[in-house]
């Protein structure tokens, strides 16, 4: 001992110094017996001097091999400095210390005793813990034991369970008594065990100090839970592995919640995608519906531009071919009301130069869409024709642009331009697809509107032409008829006068021929007049009670007067058949059918049959002449149609058509039965139109 002063210290002074030192001191004999110790050596461990001095140092060392190593080193004469060791306290807890020691040997080299200094290694909270070190340790034990939410337990180096807490019991279902000593792989699924997962986790923890894992674990009852596991390797001062700390959390509920949240998110995403798709479909359907209702060409062009704002564009323009074949801007539609005035200005402005240049012409030429996701300022500047144009474009705002051709069967008929003004809403490929779908519907509608416009024009021209023709026919017919009637009267009168003398007979015959020709002309004029009346809808019937039998006799006798060589036979099953008919029109029907029968009958007798069948009068006119082919039977009642060649038989093919109109207007029908070469039968059925008179009772 080095002393400042030479005066020797008293034995008592030395004792006091040693007894109050903050460092533990003891001497240990070669056999391990503690020969002497100061209170700082045994009191922190909870022992009294009598419980410590005289005992073997091995009783207080927690690690047998550590002590053995220390003794071995000291025996070899080594001095150990700050050697870490763990001492066992009286209550069984361990205390970390560092030991500095050397051996005092005598002259003969005999081991007298160790000179050992023991320093306590401060543990976190020890000094600061208000409870004091020991009670803090107790509290920690209690705390760990009572933790419910975490399974916290220790494994030995081989993976056998050494401790158990309440949380472990709650999560895994085992009681401490039945699980301590078991291998921790009991918590793993058979698949994990097969894959040696427990061993691998321990190996990783040993290598990396700590390993974390998430996965399925098995409870005592065989059910599985989703666990978060942290395994921490436990090593002693010298780095020797003596076990593992294991903390396990049950995340099943959290995982289920996460699963559900993910599922919800997925569902939401799917739903919003479906809604977006539905919105697209609905949008296109709206476009289709809106356009299909539009038949006006200019209105359709405007509507196309309107439909895309604001769903697909902040503003839009439509170019379409005008009558001169120039692509002209036809509509400018802007969603922002503040820009409406600018849009109107832009729409009305027309500079031929601008319409002869521009990217829309490129689109029109190639038929291919153009997508400009971002329109740079320089592009806008080069696209603008002049300062004024640039001012308008700037005002309307061109951030992103799509140009889509409107393509019909005949090629590109227009170009639809869609613009977005704001940053952050630029067009993408999906927008272009939608725009093209709109364009294809729009092109169809525009084409339809154009065709409709042309057709309407043609129709109205045609209508006007027809009206003029009908008016002409009506006037001409009327004007022809009057002088014709006067002429026929003169001829007939002259014929009578000539016939009175024998010298006049020849003249009378020729006048009769002139009269017949005139009568034919009158008939044709009448037919033309009838057609124009029927066409104009001014054809009407004037039904009155009349006797059909008498009319048939009248018409037959008139026909006989004109063609005395042809026999006409009447076969009626009634003497009188009164109905409500237009006498003149029925006369016309009969006259026509009878003259046809005579004309095409080749001189054969003509038969007329008249019957009453229920509420109808049925009249048949038959000849045995050339007949009508089945094909011709289909069309003889149409206008300007005739069965026979016009070179053989005169007429303009209106007679039977007029007959049919009269019969149908009377509520009846007409049909024909015929075989070529065997003659024809025309059957007319007309409703009688009068209540049948009740049969009079015989007196």
């Amino acid at each position, binding site marked *: 001992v080095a002393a400042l002063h030479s005066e020797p210290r008293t034995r008592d002074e030395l004792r006091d110094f040693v007894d109050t030192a903050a460092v533990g001191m003891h001497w240990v004999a070669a056999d391990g017996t503690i020969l002497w110790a100061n209170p700082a050596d045994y009191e922190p461990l909870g022992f009294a001097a009598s419980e410590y001095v005289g005992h073997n140092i091995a009783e207080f060392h927690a690690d047998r091999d550590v002590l053995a190593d220390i003794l071995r080193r000291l025996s070899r004469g080594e001095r150990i400095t700050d050697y870490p060791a763990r001492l066992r306290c009286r209550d069984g807890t361990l205390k970390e210390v560092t030991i500095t020691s050397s051996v005092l040997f005598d002259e003969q080299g005999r081991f007298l005793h160790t000179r050992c200094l023991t320093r306590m290694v401060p543990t976190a909270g020890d000094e600061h813990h208000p409870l004091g070190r020991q009670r803090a340790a107790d509290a920690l034990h209690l705390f760990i034991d009572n933790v419910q939410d975490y399974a916290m337990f220790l494994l030995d180096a081989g993976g056998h369970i050494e401790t158990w807490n309440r949380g472990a019991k709650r999560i895994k279902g085992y009681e401490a008594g039945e699980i301590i000593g078991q291998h921790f792989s009991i918590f793993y699924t058979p698949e994990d065990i097969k894959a040696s997962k427990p061993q691998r986790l321990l190996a990783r923890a040993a290598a990396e100090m700590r390993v974390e894992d998430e996965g399925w674990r098995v409870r005592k009852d065989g059910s599985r839970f989703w666990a978060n596991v942290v395994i921490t390797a436990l090593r002693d001062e010298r780095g020797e592995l003596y076990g593992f700390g294991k903390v396990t959390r049950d995340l099943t509920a959290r995982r289920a919640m996460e699963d559900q949240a993910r599922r919800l998110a997925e569902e939401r995403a799917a739903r919003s995608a479906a809604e977006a798709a539905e919105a697209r479909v609905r949008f296109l359907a709206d476009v289709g519906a809106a356009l299909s209702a539009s038949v006006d060409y200019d209105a359709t062009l405007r509507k196309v531009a309107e439909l895309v704002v604001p769903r697909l564009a902040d503003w839009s323009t439509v170019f379409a071919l005008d009558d001169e074949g120039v692509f002209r801007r036809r509509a400018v539609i802007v969603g922002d009301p503040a820009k409406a005035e600018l849009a109107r200005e832009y729409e009305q402005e027309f500079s031929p130069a601008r319409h002869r240049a521009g990217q829309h012409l490129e689109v029109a030429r190639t038929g291919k869409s153009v997508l400009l996701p971002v329109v740079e300022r320089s592009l806008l500047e080069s696209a603008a024709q002049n300062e004024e144009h640039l001012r308008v474009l700037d005002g309307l705002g061109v951030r992103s642009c799509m140009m889509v051709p409107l393509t019909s069967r005949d090629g590109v008929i227009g170009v639809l331009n869609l613009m977005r003004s704001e940053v952050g809403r630029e067009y993408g490929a999906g927008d272009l697809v939608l725009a093209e779908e709109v364009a294809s519907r729009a092109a169809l509608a525009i084409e339809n509107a154009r065709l409709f416009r042309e057709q309407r024009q043609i129709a109205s021209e045609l209508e006007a032409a027809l009206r003029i023709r009908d008016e002409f026919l009506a006037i001409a017919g009327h004007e022809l*008829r*009057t*002088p*014709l*009637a*006067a*002429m*026929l*009267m*003169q001829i*007939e*009168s*002259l014929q*009578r*006068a000539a016939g009175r003398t024998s010298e006049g007979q020849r003249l009378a015959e020729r006048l009769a021929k002139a009269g017949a020709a005139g009568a034919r002309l*009158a008939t044709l004029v009448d037919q033309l007049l009838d057609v124009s009346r029927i066409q104009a809808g001014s054809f009407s019937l*004037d039904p009155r009670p009349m006797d059909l039998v008498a009319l048939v006799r009248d018409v037959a006798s008139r026909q006989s007067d004109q063609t005395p060589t042809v026999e006409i036979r009447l076969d009626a099953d009634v003497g009188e058949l009164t109905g409500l008919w237009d006498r*003149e029109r029925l006369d016309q029907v009969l006259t026509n059918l009878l003259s046809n029968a005579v004309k095409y009958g080749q001189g054969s007798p003509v038969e007329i049959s008249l019957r009453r069948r229920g509420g109808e009068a049925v009249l048949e006119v038959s000849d045995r002449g050339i007949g009508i082919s089945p094909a011709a039977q289909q069309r003889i009642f149409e206008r300007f149609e005739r069965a026979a060649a016009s070179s053989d038989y005169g007429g303009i093919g209106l007679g039977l058509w007029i007959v049919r109109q009269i019969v149908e207007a009377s509520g009846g029908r007409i049909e024909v039965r015929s075989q070529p070469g065997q003659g024809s039968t025309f059957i007319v059925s007309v409703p009688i139109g009068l209540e049948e008179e009740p049969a009079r009772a015989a007196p």
Partner: protein
Amino acid sequence: VPPPSKRVILIVDDDHDVREAVADTLIEEGYEAVALADVPAALAYLRQQPLPGLVLLDWNMTPMNGLHFMAEIAKEPAWSGLPVVLLTADAKAPDKAQAAAFAGYLKKPVRLPELFRFAAQYSQ
């Protein structure tokens, strides 16, 4: 007022060819026929000349039509028995004839037998 001349048939029609044809035909058959172009001329004739046996009257004329003529006839008691036959192409001739107290009607184009029937009935 001159005595009636029953043999005379007065024809009033604004169409020259028609009234000439009717007049020529009647003359050819032995009647006396006077053809006039309008109602005022016919009324003037009736006031100045012997009353004819029959008047054949067209319906559509200007400045006065058949109805006007009938109204004038009705005003003059001396003309009360004068037979007037309507001459028309109108399909509604029977109704018109009845409504305006015509003696009958002749449908245009006129058929000679019917014309002669009226002529024989009302004039000698």
